[in-house]
C-alpha cells in the first residue's frame, strides 16, 4: 500500500516536472510554431547561472530570480539573433537549427562550467511529510513544484485565452504577413514568445535541479519525456501539457516500480502511440476536421 502511494506520489511530482517543461514547449509552439529542442540546454545554462551565484554565497532566491531573468534574456537573444532568420520558413530547418543550438550550448556549458556532477539546493525541505508514523513521498519542495507549475499553467491559459497580447502572439505564429497587416508587431511577438518560453523552461530547469544533481546533460532526459508530454496534450494546450505530463509521470513511475525500469521508454512510446492513434492531434487537440 505504501509502495503504491510512494510510486503514485513520486509519479505525480515527476509528471509535474515534465509538465513544466512541456509548458515551455507549448508556449513556444503557440507563439512561433517551432519545436524548440534547445529548450533543455537553455534551461541547463540558466540553472548553472543560479548555481554559480548560490555557490558564491548568495541566497537561493537570488539565484532563482537570476536564472529566470537570464532565461528571459537568453530566449529573447536566441530568437532575435538566430531563430528569426528561419522563422516562417521550412519546418525542418527550424528543427535542425534548434538541434544545432542544443549541441552548441551543451558543449559550451561543459567547457565553461565543467562536466562534473554538482548538487543543487532546494528552497524547501526534502524530507517527506509525516502522517501518523508513516512518511509520505511528498516533500515541501514537491509542494512548491506543484504550486509553481499550476501557477504557470493558469498564467498561460489566461495569457492565451484572455488577453489581447496572447491573441496577438498566436496570430503571429499562424500567419506573419496577415498579422502584420493587422498591426501586430510580429517580430516583437516572436521575441516575447521565446523569452517567456525560456523563462518557463528555466523554471522547469530549477525545479528539476532542486535537491538533485546538475551536470551539462542533466536536462536531457526531460527533452524526450517533456516533449512526449506536450505532444500527448496536443502541443497547443497548456492544460493539455499538464495533463500529458501527469499522465506520463504517473504511468512511467508505475511501470518503473512494478514492471521494470528498462521498459520506461517503451512504455512512453506505447502510451504516446495509443493516444495518437485515437487522437492524432493529442488529447486536447482542437478539432480540425475540414480539409477542403
Amino acid at each position, binding site marked *: 500500500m505504501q509502495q503504491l502511494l510512494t510510486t503514485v506520489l513520486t509519479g505525480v511530482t515527476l509528471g509535474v516536472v515534465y509538465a513544466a517543461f512541456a509548458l515551455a514547449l507549448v508556449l513556444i509552439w503557440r507563439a512561433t510554431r517551432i519545436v524548440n529542442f534547445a529548450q533543455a540546454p537553455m534551461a541547463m545554462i540558466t540553472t548553472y547561472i543560479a548555481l554559480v551565484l548560490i555557490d558564491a554565497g548568495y541566497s537561493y532566491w537570488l539565484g532563482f530570480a537570476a536564472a529566470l531573468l537570464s532565461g528571459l534574456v537568453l530566449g529573447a537573444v536566441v530568437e532575435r539573433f538566430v531563430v528569426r532568420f528561419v522563422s516562417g520558413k521550412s519546418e525542418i530547418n527550424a528543427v535542425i537549427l534548434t538541434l544545432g543550438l542544443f549541441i552548441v550550448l551543451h558543449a559550451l556549458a561543459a567547457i565553461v562550467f565543467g562536466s562534473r556532477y554538482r548538487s543543487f*539546493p532546494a528552497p*524547501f*525541505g526534502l*524530507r517527506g511529510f509525516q502522517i501518523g508514523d*508513516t512518511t509520505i513521498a511528498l516533500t515541501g519542495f514537491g509542494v512548491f513544484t506543484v504550486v509553481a507549475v499550476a501557477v504557470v499553467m493558469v498564467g498561460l491559459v489566461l495569457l492565451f485565452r484572455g488577453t489581447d497580447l496572447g491573441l496577438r502572439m498566436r496570430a503571429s505564429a499562424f500567419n506573419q504577413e496577415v498579422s502584420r497587416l493587422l498591426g501586430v508587431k510580429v517580430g516583437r511577438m516572436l521575441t516575447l514568445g521565446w523569452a517567456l518560453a525560456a523563462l518557463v523552461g528555466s523554471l522547469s530547469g530549477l525545479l528539476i535541479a532542486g535537491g538533485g544533481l546538475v*551536470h*551539462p546533460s542533466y536536462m536531457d532526459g526531460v527533452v524526450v519525456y517533456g516533449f512526449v508530454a506536450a505532444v500527448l496534450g496536443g502541443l497547443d494546450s497548456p492544460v493539455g501539457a499538464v495533463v500529458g505530463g501527469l499522465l506520463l509521470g504517473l504511468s512511467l513511475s*508505475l511501470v518503473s*516500480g512494478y514492471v521494470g*525500469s528498462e521498459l520506461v521508454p517503451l512504455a512512453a512510446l506505447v502510451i504516446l502511440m495509443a493516444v495518437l492513434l485515437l487522437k492524432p492531434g493529442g488529447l486536447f487537440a482542437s478539432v480540425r476536421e475540414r480539409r477542403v
Partner: protein
Amino acid sequence: GAGGRPEGEEKGSTVGITDTTIKIGAHFPLTGVAAPGYSEIPSGHQAYYDYVNANGGVNGRKIEFVVKDDGYNPTNTSQVTNELVLNDEIFAMVGGLGTPTHSAVVDYLNDAKVPDLFVSSGSLQWGDWPKEKPFTFGWQPDYEIEGKIIGDWVAKNMPDAKVGLFLQDDDFGRDGEKGARRYLDSQIVAVAKYTPGNTDVAPQIAQLQAAGVDLVLGFNVPSYTALSQLVSLKIGFKPKWFYSNVGSDPALVGSLLARFSEGAVTDSASLLNGVMSTEYLPGMDAPDDPWMKLWQKVWDEHGADGELTNYRVYGMSQAYTFVQALQAAGQDPTREGIVEAIEKSGASFEGPGIAPFRYTGDSHLGISGMSVVEIQNGIGEDLTPVLVTDLGDTPIKEDDSAAGDAPPSNGIPDVKPAE
C-alpha cells in the same frame, strides 16, 4: 602462400615504440552523460606519466598518452580505437573505460595483437578468458569477488538482516549479485534494478521499502548513491546501506549531497555516517597514506586544473601499474613481450592496491581483494583486514601481504625485467 603472397615472418611487434618514446592510448568518455567523474581518470594517467617522463622516463623512453573521447558510445569506441591503433599506432591500450564500450573493441585489439591493459571496469570478461583474449588484462577487483566479499561479511556479521539489492541493470549489477548470492541467497528479500539514465529511482526504493528490507546492498554508480539517499529521505526509509566501491566515493557523494539541504539535510557527511562499503585503493579520505602523499605531490607538480579526486587517484594508480609492466617487459619491449611479462611477474607488482593482482597465464583478472569499511565523517574506517578471493567457489581469506606496500622514495617503481 595462397594467391602467391609472400609469407610474413612473425616477430614481436614494436609498433609505437621508438628509442626515446612509447606511445599508448585509451578511450574515455570525455563528453556526454558518463563524462562527469570518469573524464577525470585520464588526467590522473597523464599527470603520472608526466611525472615519470620528467624523471627520465622508462628505460630512457618518454610515455606519450593519447586519449580519445568515445562519449560512452561503443560505436565511437570502435572508431576511436581504429584511430588509436591504425592512425596513432599506439603500442598498447591502457585503461580504456567502460564495459559496453570496451566490449566493442576487445576482440579487435586481440585480433590485432595490441596489448589491452588494465581496462577501467570490473567486468569479468577482461580477465576470465585469457585463452580467447590473451592481450587483455583487467585491473580493478571484478564485481563478482566484490559481491562475494560483501556477501560473506554480511552473512557473518548481520545474519538476521533482510537484504535488498539495488542494482545497476548491467554486468556490474549482475556480477555483483552473483557474488553476493553465493553467501546471502537466503537473506535477500528484494531486488530492485535501475536503468542508467533514468534518474527517478523512487519506485525502486519504494519496492525495497515495501519488502521490509533493512540492509540495502547497492551496486550502483555514485550519482545513484546520492539519488537513493535522497529518495530514502523523502519516503522515510531508514535501512543500513552498503554500497560497492564504485558507488561509495565518500568525498564525491558527500559533496553531491552537500547541497540537498536548506533545512532538510543539514550535515551531508553525517547522512553517510554508518554507510558501509569496500576499498581496494587508498583514496582521498586517507590523505596521510604514503601513496596519497605521492599522488598529491604528482598532482601538484604535473596535474591539470582542478583538485585531486579519487578518479584521478584511480588513473594514477593504473598508470603506476603500467609503468611497472613496461619495466617488466625489459629494455626492448614488444607487444607480445609485455603481455608475457605481466603474466610472469604481474602477481608480484607492489603498488597502491591493498591486495595482490591475480595475473598469471591462466587469469588476467586484476586486484584480488578489498577490505570492508564503514564511513564515518567522510572517512572509510576498516571493519576487516584485506579479504582476498577469486571467482567461483574460491574461499575468502585474509591477506595483508600487499597492504603494506609503500611507494619508492622517488615515486617511480623499479621492477626487474621478467625472465
